[in-house]
């Protein structure tokens, strides 16, 4: 990665980290409700892959741990935070919530709550790209445990069969909620499960963004050049509980500490400091600046935004009636 890009991405990752930590606080304050799945620890996965792709151009879809993916594609953190607050200015106008961030304009095709649900949707987006003849690709970010759903296997088969331009990124954080991967899955290394479908696959350290970037470049080039789907497994770790009420009794504090020794943000920061591209003081100033931005712009916007109107409860269930009248009434042609 170029130095300028590394510096930019470091700031982005700090934004992502502080955004998520601020969500945690807002949840405790009961400003955010429902389920809340946070991303700290895994930042190099989304950032590394998307640096190798074209954010806002390539189509991205994921599960419920979706805030950072949306922001990386180009969603305004303010709109994402407002969505978590359930406000009308939210990315889904307060109708979606944490697990359902969408930003169609930036080709972020959404967060979905059913484990395994996005696999076929991603392949369908790729099918549409194939039909329309564009050079975008579809990128599907999901967890390790999702691979035990039928949709994973059904979709891999179809994606390979029809050579669809779709990249499956598996963020293997070793747990599905509180179940360690070796207790749910016969084969821990997920890329090995893909071979049977005739799909190119690789595994990579998910903590080191430069390694992720290099692996993703190969993957993205493969898919974009029309060679069909690709499966990239990134070994990573989530620091917090699965959602909010999770005491993490299923793993040891030692294991957590071990992973934090290879924190994706600090790895990149220390590398930049070693390369004399920045100092520790620069980094501390960056964190401060980001915190200020999150507090005084992002959170402020969410706090001050209006609630959706109850009168509009049924808006968005179906397409606007006025635009559909010919088909509803049979008055066409």
């Amino acid at each position, binding site marked *: 990665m170029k130095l300028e890009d590394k510096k930019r991405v470091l700031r982005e990752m700090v934004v992502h980290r502080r955004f998520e930590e601020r969500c945690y606080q807002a949840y405790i304050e009961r400003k955010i409700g429902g389920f809340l799945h946070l991303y700290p620890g895994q930042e190099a996965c989304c950032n590394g892959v998307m640096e190798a792709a074209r954010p806002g151009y390539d*189509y991205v*879809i994921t599960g419920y741990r979706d805030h950072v993916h949306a922001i990386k594609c180009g969603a305004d953190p303010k709109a994402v935070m407002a969505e978590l607050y359930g406000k009308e200015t*939210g*990315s*889904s*106008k*307060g*109708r*979606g*919530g944490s697990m*359902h961030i*969408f*930003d*169609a*304009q930036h080709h972020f*095709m*959404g967060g*979905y*709550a*059913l484990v395994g*649900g996005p*696999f*076929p*949707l*991603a*392949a*369908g*987006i*790729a*099918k*549409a*790209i*194939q*039909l*329309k003849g564009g050079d975008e690709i579809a990128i599907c970010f999901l967890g390790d445990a999702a691979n035990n759903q*039928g*949709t994973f296997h*059904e*979709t891999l*088969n*179809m994606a390979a*069969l*029809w050579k669809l331009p779709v990249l499956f990124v598996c963020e293997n954080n070793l747990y599905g909620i509180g179940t360690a991967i070796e207790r749910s899955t016969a084969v821990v290394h997920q890329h090995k499960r893909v071979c049977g479908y005739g799909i190119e696959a690789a595994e990579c350290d998910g903590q080191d963004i430069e390694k992720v970037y290099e692996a993703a470049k190969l993957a993205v080039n493969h898919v974009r050049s029309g060679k069909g789907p690709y499966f990239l497994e990134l070994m990573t770790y989530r620091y917090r509980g699965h959602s909010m009420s999770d005491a993490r009794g299923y793993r040891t504090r030692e294991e957590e500490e071990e992973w934090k020794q290879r924190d994706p943000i600090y790895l990149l920061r220390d590398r930049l400091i070693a390369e004399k591209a920045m100092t520790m003081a620069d980094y501390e100033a960056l964190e401060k600046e980001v915190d200020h931005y999150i507090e005084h712009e992002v959170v402020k916007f969410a706090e001050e935004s209006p609630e959706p109107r109850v009168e509009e409860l049924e*808006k*968005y*269930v*179906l*397409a606007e009636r006025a*635009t*559909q009248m*010919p*088909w*509803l*009434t*049979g*008055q*066409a*042609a």
Partner: protein
Amino acid sequence: MAEMMYWEAIRRAHDEEMARDPLVICMGEDIGVAGGTYKATKGLFEKYGPLRVMDTPISENSYTGLGIGASFLGVRPIIEIMSVNFAWLAMDQMFNSAAKVRYMSGGQLTAPVVFRSPGGTAHQLGAQHSARMEKVFMGIAGLRVVTPSNPRQAYGLLKSAVRCDDPVFINEHELMYNMKGPVPDAEYFHPLEGSEITRSGTDVTLLGYNISVHWNLKAAEILDKQYGISAEVVDLYSLAPLDRAGIRQSVAKTHRAVVVGEDEAPVSVASEVIAILNEECFFDLDAAPVRINSANVPQPYNHTLEMATIPNHESVVRAVLKLFGKA
């Protein structure tokens, strides 16, 4: 107006829509090279090729999801599910993705996809091939459900469903693909909402959809000829949304209602229609509305038992006579 069969009408709608718009595609098991279990896509593979007429693997939930994903980008897939009994496997994607994406994205995404699938009791297909599932689909917000009772509707409803921006489930019937009927020669779009009065009458309203419309028509004939009772037959081709106004208008005139469906009584289409009758025309009614449904059992294989589970025109006649104190 040419006569054509139900399957030919569906095939014609596919062909016209695919010829018009390169983003209309169709997918499903055995629909391509084999031409479709009920011939609804016959000849389309040869005409439009494998990219647009997709023989899918037997992966109901995922090819349904794939079609839905493609629809997010403006592709208009017509997805055939070989039998509604297999739609259970696809319901996650139909309900959680297609029906909800517009709402949970605050209107940003929409899934203009069409699902077509035959249901109902055919000839001794047994418990796992005789499901009637319209009652499940019609309860899901964000999904339109229509069900054609004749070739004209089969053609026109599919045409409108392809054009509509909402996801539409078309509930066909195993026994009706060879039914013949008139279909307009000119392009025709059947309304996705509303209901049709198939036969007008003054004494009682027989509400039905799909195959039960035909039982009702036959019953109305007998009631008229043999008993002097004038029955109005209403075709509820749209199950979601149900036509409240149409139901109200007819029953306000006749003051009596019999609701007939091939589904099982607990949580049936009739349950919902009778709830609407309560809400819309309680004071117009001269008698409590009656529903006629199939027996609530997994469909038996034995022919005699099977016939005993489903209603027919005779059950309708009996119910009406009882309503008039004549039985």
